[in-house]
């Protein structure tokens, strides 16, 4: 070992000092340029005062330091009043199917059946349907976003917690596959539409949203074992713009692109228990 080698601590001092200076120098030049010079110069050109420009660069005020913000527009009427607040989602998560059962036996059973199997082709099956989907529709009936002579009155008579309980009750009913079919029975073009969509018409696959656990919009209903006539009617109403409680027209846009035979084929497909 070379005897002249100095102590590590002495060797270390310049490293400590210079490393600290270098690191802080670099950060400081970043702050100087990114937070002061660039936003102030950009803002000045557009007539934005320096304080606002700096705050915008820091993300304290909204907007770009280089442009004036555009003004807001006037409020319109919403297509659906339902707001998925954490509070509402918690009500749905805490809903009690047993409390729901009482209300179902009192009111809903006449059309939707005690097990959620509809008694007539114009009513949807509700067994195993997502609670959020049932709640959304009941709520839309209540607010008038969706219109139906029977349902509007019924939904208006129920409070929010009861809606959630009823939804939870039907969500908890098992599906029973009353119309068993195999995929071989379904036309290949329809299976294609369900699984892969149609890129040339910009139609996403139905299964991307309407399968349980697909991760699509929270209010999307699960489609399986649904009443065919009901589905056909709803798709036609969406296509014609007669039903419009789908937020941002997600279903109106898609339904308008489907041909009558595709609507019929999809409704037939979803009559069976495919998921």
């Amino acid at each position, binding site marked *: 070992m*070379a005897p002249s080698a100095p102590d590590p601590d002495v060797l270390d001092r310049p490293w400590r000092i210079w490393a600290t200076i270098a690191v802080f120098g670099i950060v400081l030049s970043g702050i100087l*340029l990114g937070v002061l*010079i*660039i936003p102030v*110069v*950009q803002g000045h*050109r*557009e007539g934005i005062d320096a304080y606002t420009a700096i705050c*915008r*660069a820091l*993300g*304290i*005020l*909204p*907007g*770009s*330091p*280089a*442009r004036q913000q*555009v*003004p*807001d*527009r*006037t*409020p*319109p*009427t*919403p*297509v*659906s*009043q339902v*707001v*998925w*607040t954490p509070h509402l989602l918690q009500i749905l998560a805490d809903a009690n199917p047993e409390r729901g059962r009482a209300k179902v036996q009192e009111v809903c059973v006449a059309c939707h059946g005690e097990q959620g199997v509809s008694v007539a082709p114009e009513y949807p099956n509700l067994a195993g349907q997502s609670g959020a989907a049932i709640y959304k529709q009941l709520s839309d009936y209540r607010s008038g976003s969706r219109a139906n002579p029977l349902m509007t009155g019924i939904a208006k008579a129920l409070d929010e917690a009861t809606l959630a309980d009823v939804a939870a009750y039907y969500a908890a009913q098992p599906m029973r596959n009353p119309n068993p079919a195999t995929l071989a029975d379904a036309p290949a073009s329809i299976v294609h539409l369900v699984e892969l*969509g*149609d*890129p040339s018409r*910009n*139609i*996403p*696959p139905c*299964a*991307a*949203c309407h399968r349980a656990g*697909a*991760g*699509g*919009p*929270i209010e999307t209903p699960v489609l399986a074992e649904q009443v065919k006539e009901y589905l056909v009617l709803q798709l036609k109403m969406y296509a014609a713009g007669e039903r419009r409680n789908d*937020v*941002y*027209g*997600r279903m109106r*846009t*898609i339904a308008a692109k489907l041909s009558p035979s595709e609507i019929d084929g999809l409704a037939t497909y979803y009559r069976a228990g495919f998921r």
Partner: protein
Amino acid sequence: MTDQPAATHERRILGTELLWAFGVGVLVAAVLGMIVFTALTIDINPPSNVERIDPKTLHLSGEFAEQNLGTTVGADGRVTVRAIATQFMFVPHCIAVPQERLVTLRFTTPDVIHGLLITGTNVNTMVVPGFVAQVYTTFTRTGDLLMPCHEYCGLGHSDMWATVQVMPDSDFKPDRDGRVSCAQR
């Protein structure tokens, strides 16, 4: 081996490495210099509009309600596009914009994280729920461009795209409400 040659190596090597580090500094300076220059002269920034908006109530009222979406021309002549990215489509599905005019694009989403780009242009932004994503740009060429969603947003992600119609300024005619829609073809 003696200390003498090793010591001379060490000094020379460190000197060379420092010289090289200077070269690295030139690269860093060139990269940063271009960025700072274009930021100072022609306002090139990444889209960073820290503007909060509640994704849960977008559809009820305000500028991102369904009726307000699309292209509008304000009284001052500013062109603003408002669009929603939602699973799995853009609303509106076709966006009309003028050529060679400053356009403000405003996007937000009611559901999950999306993103978008417009092919052949520098329009590119993430659309994060809770925030308005805003891009200022000038479209340099006319024609139909694709505007796909480029951030995975769910199983229908691959089929999520819209069209951007860049029209000559002479064809870009707002209606009485100041709105412009895509030409039907």
